[in-house]
């Protein structure tokens, strides 16, 4: 244990890691706090949350539904007012005459309430149409799967929670920041030993290199976990400060980005999965970086190749957003370490891939691929690090 703690101290004692991590954290906070006073952040959803249930009831009221459909999903608040709960209008009336950054708050909230009702009606109509279409389509494994998912979705709710923003935390920026700091800390774990010529000397010690191998691995994984916890906590604190708590748990299909996706999860469940994915992804990335570090003789090469490994997956994945079928072209992006750390694309869009008559969730493929990468990376690190060096 003392060996592991010594190795851990070696990693965390690199000042440049913390200086760059601090710069990243400050920049992230700056970017984020800049939007804190936007109208949409301060008023749009927050002001309507007290009448969440009333808005939901309105969207499921057959009379309102008929009116909204008849008007082509384009209605005003004043048109809906006689059909919906008076509590909604009373809540909005509180903001009468209030102007915020040039916006007439009451007017904007009326538009917002109308949009929330009509979009919920429209979404339900769209999903019902999709279900009907699927019932009439040929009985293929994909159609069967989609029908099963769409018919078992939780009841859609108005998108008045802050889960859109909370889930967006891990969409792209945070995984990139975490990966950057993890690679920065871990890239020189073995190369440092090679450049200081300690690698050869270790063969003459009692325990040799094998004991050190596990200590270095454990220490690096601990460092990665610590980075994930720090950055996820920072992001959560910033989100809490700007948006507040997400108000209430809501089904994923209630969120704008995911409502057409065959996703039956709840937002809280998905966010917790993202946190777990972030941790697992960081640990896999650590194993890959250690493997590259054990192979390279220079920090520069180790850092660069590890960065390329992660960046390629991220670039590829970011260019393929919005699909829910994994194809031969997208499979490398979907199975990448970035995808595991983000999960927005793979799990959020409920991606699947088709093998013969089977429809398999892509997340399983991602997890298996990453587990294989982790094991192979560890094996190779062990081989590279423990090979005998006869260069006397």
């Amino acid at each position, binding site marked *: 244990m003392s060996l592991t703690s010594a190795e851990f101290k070696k990693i965390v004692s690199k000042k*440049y890691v913390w200086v*760059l991590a601090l710069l990243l954290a400050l920049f992230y906070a700056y970017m984020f706090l*800049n939007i804190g006073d936007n109208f949409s952040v301060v008023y749009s959803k927050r002001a309507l949350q007290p009448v969440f249930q009333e808005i939901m009831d309105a969207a499921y009221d057959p009379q309102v539904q008929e009116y909204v459909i008849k008007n082509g999903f384009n209605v005003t608040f004043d048109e809906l007012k006689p059909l919906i709960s008076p509590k909604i209008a009373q809540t909005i009336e509180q903001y009468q005459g209030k102007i915020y950054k040039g916006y007439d708050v009451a007017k904007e909230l009326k538009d917002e309430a109308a949009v929330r009702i009509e979009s919920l009606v429209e979404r339900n109509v769209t999903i019902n149409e999709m279900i009907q279409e699927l019932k009439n389509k040929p009985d293929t494994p994909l159609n069967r799967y989609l029908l099963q998912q769409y018919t078992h979705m939780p009841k859609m709710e108005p998108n008045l929670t802050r889960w859109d923003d909370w889930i967006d935390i891990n969409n792209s920026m945070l995984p990139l920041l975490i990966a*950057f700091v993890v690679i920065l800390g871990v890239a020189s774990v073995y190369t440092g030993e090679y450049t200081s010529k300690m690698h050869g000397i270790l063969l003459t010690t009692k325990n040799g290199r094998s004991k050190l191998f596990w200590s270095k691995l454990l220490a690096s994984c601990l460092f990665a976990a610590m980075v994930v916890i720090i950055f996820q906590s920072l992001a959560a604190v910033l989100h809490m400060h700007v948006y507040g708590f997400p108000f209430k748990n809501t089904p994923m299909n209630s969120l704008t980005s995911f409502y057409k996706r065959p996703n039956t999860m709840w937002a809280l469940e998905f966010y917790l999965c993202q946190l777990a994915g972030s941790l697992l992804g960081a640990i896999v990335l650590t194993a890959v970086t250690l493997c590259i570090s054990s192979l390279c003789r220079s*920090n520069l090469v180790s*850092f660069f190749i590890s960065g390329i490994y992660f960046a390629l997956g991220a670039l590829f994945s970011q260019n393929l957003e919005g699909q829910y079928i994994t194809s031969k072209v997208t499979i490398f992006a979907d199975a990448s370490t970035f995808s595991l750390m983000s999960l927005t694309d793979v799990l959020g869009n409920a991606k699947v891939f088709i093998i013969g008559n089977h429809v398999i969730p892509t997340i399983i493929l991602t997890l298996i691929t990453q587990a294989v990468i982790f094991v192979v990376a560890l094996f190779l690190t062990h081989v590279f690090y423990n090979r005998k060096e006869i260069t006397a």
Partner: protein
Amino acid sequence: MKAKGGSYQNLMMAELKTLLNNHWTLIVLSVYVFFTCSVYFSESFRQTWLQVLDGNLFTTMINLYLPTFLFIAVLLNTAPIFASDKKNGMEELADTCFYGKNFRKKAKIEATIFYTILITAAGFLVTAAVSLASRTPLDLSSKAFETVNLDISMSNGVFYLFCFAMVVLGLIAVASAVVLISSRSDDVIVPLASGILIYGIELALYLKPLVKILWDINLLKLLRPYTMLSVSLYFDSAIKALVANVVAFVLVSVALFLLAFTAAPEAKAKHTLSSPST
């Protein structure tokens, strides 16, 4: 400037040759040539992976892809320029030489600037050569972005030269920051990571224009020159934004190179005092 073992120019040329002969230059340029050939010769590759600008492949390559490859090459070559000397003790050795490290430092900085210009020129020439080999005309006399209503309009030929100048300036700005950090650090990973961090921050400020002036005066605009031809968020015209961007980055580059150069005497004194042999 004449030294016993040769002239200052010899020293600078030696540093330049070291940079040009570095295997990273070769690797990055080879990958770029492979990528460019795939773009020009394979239509399916183009359709799957490429976003074509102005219906002109050369414009697309020199705006969207070449600068990224050049950025990687410059970063990998300049990051160890001073930091690796400290690691292997070369810095102390230079202190004991007749001309000290000032000439060497100056030679390294000049070599970095020439290297940046040469590698950018090589990138442009390679792209043009592949373009001509694939019988894709460069269309020099046509108006750049003919169908778009730009604030600054020019012919393709002039636009290519403009792109060259902007990309060189952007890369020199990156190199100046990396060289400065390299001169202050004894670990190669620090300047490399800092270069990536600078690029990342500029990219984020470019993609999310939260601060208007930082969107107009942005490294990414220099590395994607077509974005400078229209729309300014802070200034009232694209020309003003362009001039401000160029002036700002020229000043920053000069200041950073000067800082990198003047870091020498302090380090020299520190080493002299702390050296056990003295």
